[in-house]
């Protein structure tokens, strides 16, 4: 399963709910206003992530917000092409709206 979160965890509960339902072997992609989670200052919000959850961040969204190249260790930056690859690689997609 590819989980997609697009909201900041300091504004909404989407990330928290996603992490509570994600499982080992799943992937999480942070896009739009969720990319703040992928930086040193926001990473604490991932403390509740299950073991074995691979975390990705959409780099165009990081760049737009002045955080290009600032993804914290352990979080992989992908572009839209990488987004598509994640969708293809995981058997299902769930957006946490």
């Amino acid at each position: 399963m590819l989980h997609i979160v697009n909201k900041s965890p300091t504004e909404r509960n989407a990330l928290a709910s996603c992490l509570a339902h994600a499982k080992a072997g799943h992937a999480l992609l942070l896009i739009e206003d969720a990319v703040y989670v992928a930086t040193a200052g926001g990473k604490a919000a991932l403390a509740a992530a299950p073991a074995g959850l691979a975390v990705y961040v959409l780099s165009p969204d990081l760049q737009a917000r002045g955080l290009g190249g600032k993804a914290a260790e352990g979080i992989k930056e992908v572009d839209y092409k990488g987004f598509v690859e994640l969708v293809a690689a995981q058997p299902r997609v769930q957006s946490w709206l």
Partner: protein
Amino acid sequence: MSEGTVKKFMFVNRKAPYGSVYALESLEVVLITAAFDQDVSLAFLDDGVYQLVKGQDTKAVGMKNFSPTYRALEGYDIEKLYVERESLEARGLTEEQLLVDVQVLSQADMASLMAEQDVVLSF
């Protein structure tokens, strides 16, 4: 894929009713999906559990009360309504306050059920 394909569709409801239209328009998709003879499940978690609270009366707000539709789902053979226990409890709600029969699941069981679906639509 052939016309006879049956997939597992799950509709994830995480938002309160009336404040936004998602709950209402989600139900419209649910009904159509059932009409296509698909395997339909509805999941209610987080503020989505508020959608099922009994006694909704929209006269004073002047909006359409769509909550009777949840009761009508059975008539369309939509019987898999899952509610997350943790979400109910965090909001001080009990199963008795809900307007329709549901299966109450733990968060862990809800997560497992989500992971078994073919198509997950969130509104």
